[in-house]
C-alpha cells in the first residue's frame, strides 16, 4: 500500500498542468475564477484545443479517440482541469451519449457521431426528465410510434440543460405503452432542427438561463437513430447514469473554490482583522477542507479499484462520491456567501450579457449569491441525493 502518486504519475500531472497553463486563454481562466460561466464559443474553442492535443475524450476506448490512460491518470487530468480552472467539458456528448453509442450503437452511428462529439461540432443535450417524471424516471410518457422507417415522437422533456445551444438531443421515449414501465422504453437520437421541436427557456432561481423545456409535436425521427434495440432503452439509461464515475465528486472544482474562499477571506476585513483570521470562520473552512480531503481519498480508492472492475459496471461506492461531492460543493458556495457579506445583495448581470456598468462592491461579488442559488441543483440532478441513498441502501447494504 502506497497512497502517494508514483514519480510517473507526478510527471504526468506536471505535463497536464503545464499544458493547461499555456493552452488555456488567460481571460477564460480569469472569468471562471470570478465565478462566471464560459460562453458557448469559449467552451467550443477549449474543447477543440484539447481535441487537437488528443485530450478531449481521454476516457473513451483508444479505437474511438481515447488516450488509454490509467484510471489514476484520468483522475489527475480531471482534477487538474477542474482546479486550473478550465471550462468543464460538455458532459452530455462526451460522457453521456458517446459511451452509449460506442457500446450499443451501430458502426454507422459511431462513425457519424463520435468524431463530431470529440470536437464539439455537435452540441448534445439530454432528454430524460419530464414534468411528471423526475426521480421516478421510468414513468416517462413521451411516445415514439413507428411509422414506416420513422418514429413519430410526441411529448415533453424538461430541465434540459443548455438545449438552447443544442444540435442534438438523446431521448428516452416510450415505444411500448403496454409493457411494464421499464420495459417499453427506447433510446433515440433526435436532431434539434427537426420540424416540431420547440425549446422554451426556464429561468432558474439564480436568474440564469441554463435549463429548458423541450416540446415534441409529431417529430419524425429516422429509425436509424434508434440506439441498440427497441424497448431496451432503460438498460442503456442505467448504463449511462452509472457511467460517469471519474470526476463525479468534482473534487478539483471544490479545491479551486476553497482556494478562492481562502484568498478572498484574506482580503475581506472584519473590523481590524482579515476574515480568515476569525477563528469561527477559519474553523468552518477547515472543516470543509477535511471533508474534501476525505472525499478525495475516497475518490482515489474508487479510481484505484476501477482497473479491476468489469467494464460498464459502476462501483456502487460512486454514490458516496455524488452525495459527499455535492454537499461539499454546496458548502463552498455557502462559505463564499459568508465572505462577500452585504455585497451579496446587488443583482448584477454576467459580463457577456451586456453589462457596461462598473461592478458594485468587489469585482467578484456579483456571481456569489447566484452561484449559491444555482448550486443547490447539484444535490438534485443526476439522481437526487435521496435517490443515491436508496441506491446505496439497496446495492451496497442489501436493505
Amino acid at each position, binding site marked *: 500500500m502506497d497512497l502517494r502518486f508514483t514519480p510517473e504519475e507526478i510527471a504526468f500531472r506536471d505535463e497536464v498542468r503545464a499544458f493547461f497553463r499555456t493552452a488555456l486563454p488567460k481571460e477564460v481562466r480569469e472569468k471562471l475564477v470570478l465565478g462566471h460561466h464560459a460562453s458557448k464559443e469559449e467552451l467550443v474553442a477549449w474543447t477543440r484545443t484539447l481535441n487537437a492535443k488528443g485530450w478531449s475524450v481521454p476516457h473513451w476506448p483508444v479505437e474511438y479517440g481515447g488516450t488509454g490512460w490509467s484510471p489514476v491518470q484520468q483522475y489527475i487530468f480531471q482534477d487538474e482541469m477542474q482546479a486550473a480552472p478550465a471550462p468543464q467539458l460538455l458532459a452530455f456528448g462526451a460522457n453521456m451519449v458517446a459511451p452509449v453509442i460506442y457500446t450499443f450503437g451501430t458502426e454507422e452511428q459511431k462513425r457519424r457521431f463520435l468524431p463530431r462529439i470529440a470536437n464539439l461540432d455537435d452540441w448534445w443535450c439530454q432528454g430524460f426528465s419530464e414534468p411528471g417524471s423526475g426521480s421516478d424516471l421510468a414513468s416517462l410518457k413521451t411516445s415514439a410510434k413507428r411509422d414506416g422507417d420513422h418514429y413519430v415522437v410526441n411529448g415533453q422533456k424538461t430541465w434540459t440543460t443548455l438545449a438552447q445551444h443544442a444540435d442534438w438531443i438523446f431521448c428516452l421515449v416510450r415505444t411500448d405503452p403496454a409493457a411494464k414501465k421499464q420495459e417499453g422504453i427506447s433510446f433515440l437520437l433526435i436532431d434539434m432542427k427537426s420540424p416540431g421541436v420547440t425549446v422554451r427557456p426556464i429561468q432558474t432561481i439564480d436568474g440564469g438561463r441554463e435549463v429548458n423545456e423541450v416540446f415534441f409535436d409529431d417529430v419524425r425521427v429516422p429509425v436509424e437513430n434508434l440506439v441498440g434495440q427497441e424497448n431496451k432503452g432503460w438498460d442503456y439509461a442505467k448504463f449511462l447514469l452509472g457511467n460517469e464515475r471519474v470526476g463525479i465528486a468534482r473534487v478539483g472544482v471544490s479545491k479551486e473554490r476553497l482556494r478562492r474562499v481562502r484568498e478572498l477571506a484574506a482580503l475581506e476585513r472584519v473590523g481590524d482583522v482579515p476574515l480568515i483570521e476569525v477563528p469561527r470562520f*477559519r*474553523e468552518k473552512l477547515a472543516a470543509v*477542507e477535511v471533508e474534501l*480531503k476525505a472525499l*478525495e481519498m475516497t475518490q*482515489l480508492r474508487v479510481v484505484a479499484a476501477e482497473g479491476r472492475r468489469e467494464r460498464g459496471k459502476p462501483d456502487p461506492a460512486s454514490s458516496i462520491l455524488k452525495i459527499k461531492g455535492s454537499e461539499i460543493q454546496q458548502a463552498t458556495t455557502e462559505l463564499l456567501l459568508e465572505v462577500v457579506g452585504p455585497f451579496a445583495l446587488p443583482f448584477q448581470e454576467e459580463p457577456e450579457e451586456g453589462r457596461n456598468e462598473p461592478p458594485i462592491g468587489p469585482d467578484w461579488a456579483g456571481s456569489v449569491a447566484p452561484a449559491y442559488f444555482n448550486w443547490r441543483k447539484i444535490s438534485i440532478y443526476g439522481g437526487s441525493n435521496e435517490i443515491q*441513498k436508496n441506491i*446505496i441502501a439497496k446495492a451496497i447494504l442489501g436493505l
Partner: protein
Amino acid sequence: MDFDLSEEQRLLKDSVDRLLADRYDFEARKRYRGTEEGFSREIWAQYAELGLLALPFAEEHGGFGGGPVETMIVMESLGRALALEPYLATIVLGGGLIRRGASDEQKAALVPDIAAGERLLAFAHTERQSRYDLHDVATTARRDGAAFVLNGEKSVVLHGDGADAILITARVAGGRRDRGGIGLFLVDARDPGVSRRGYPTQDGQRAAEVSLSDVRVGPEGVIGSAEDALPLVERVVDEAIAALAAEAVGCMAEMHALTVEYLKTRKQFGTTIGSFQVLQHKAVDMFVALEQARSMAMFGTMMAADEDETERRRAAAATKVQIGRSAKIVGQNAIQLHGGVGMTMEFKVGHYFKRATMIDQLFGDADHHLERLGALGGLMAA
C-alpha cells in the same frame, strides 16, 4: 498510487484476524475484562508470538521494521475485536517514544523485553489542568547532578496501573505552558516514589492516576533531549492519532455491520425494519461517515511518516477531526437503530459505541483539532 496490501501485509492482517476470531468473541472479552489486570496476558503472549509487539521496531533492535501501514492493519483489527490489551499504550505510545527518542543503549535494554511481551509501558502526559495540550506540564524534574528528581501528578494514564515502566513528561525549565524545557523520563512503575490508583475506563480498558514524589531518574532514564522532548512527544502522538483512527474505523465498521444485520432481521409492523426508508437512509449516513473515516485514516497513516512537520501535523489534526465526527454519526445512529437492544451491556454494539466515543476524547477531540487545524492555516494552505 496503490491501495492494496502487499503480500506480507496481507499475511499480517490474516494472522491477526485469525487470532482474534478464535480468541476474542464477546464472551471471551467479558472474561478478560473481569480479570484484575483487565486484559488477557495469554493473548498478549500470543501477540508477541505473532510478532505484533516487535512490529514497529527496527530490525537491528530486534523488531520487524514495520511502518504506519502495518500499525494501521493491527489497530483496525484490534478495533474490530474491541481488544483490551495495552497495544496502544505499550507499543504505539511507549514503544513509539522509545523507538524515536531513545539511545541505542536504551533500546538494547528495553526493546527485547517489550517485543517478548514481558515489559508493559504507559505514557503519562495529562494533568488536571492540561486538557489536550501536551506542552502544558506542571510536573517538575529538578536536576540533581546527572540525575533528575520528579514531582507531580499525572492523570488518565492509559494502562498506567499495569505498566512496568511509565514514560513521563516533566518540566525541567520554563513556565507551565512553555514549549521548551520539557523532558521525557522513563520511570520504574514500582519505584517507591510512584503511587498509582488504577481504575476501569468507560470503554472497558484501564487507566491510572499517578503521583510522583521525589522520584529519582538517572541519565539512563532520560529519553531524548532532556530539555526539549516536546517535538518527540508530538510526533509520537501524531502517529498514535493515525493508529487510533484505524482502531476507530474497526469499531465503526463493526457497528455499521451489526446495525445493517439488525435492520435485516428485526421485524416490526409485520416486516423487517430495514424496509423502512427512513432507517435505510440513516444506515447510509453511517456508511458514508464510515467510508470517509476510512479514507481519512489512510491519509493520516500515509502522512504519519511524512518528514515535513507542518504537513504531518495538519494531517493528524484533520484525521482526528474526521474520525471524531464520523464516530458520532456512526455510533449514535448504531444505538438509535438498535433501539433498546443498543442500550444493554449484553449486546456488543454499545461497547463499540463506548470505545469509539472515548477515542474522540483521547489526544484532542474533533473541535480541539479543528481549532488546531485552523491555526495551522488549514489543510490546503500549502
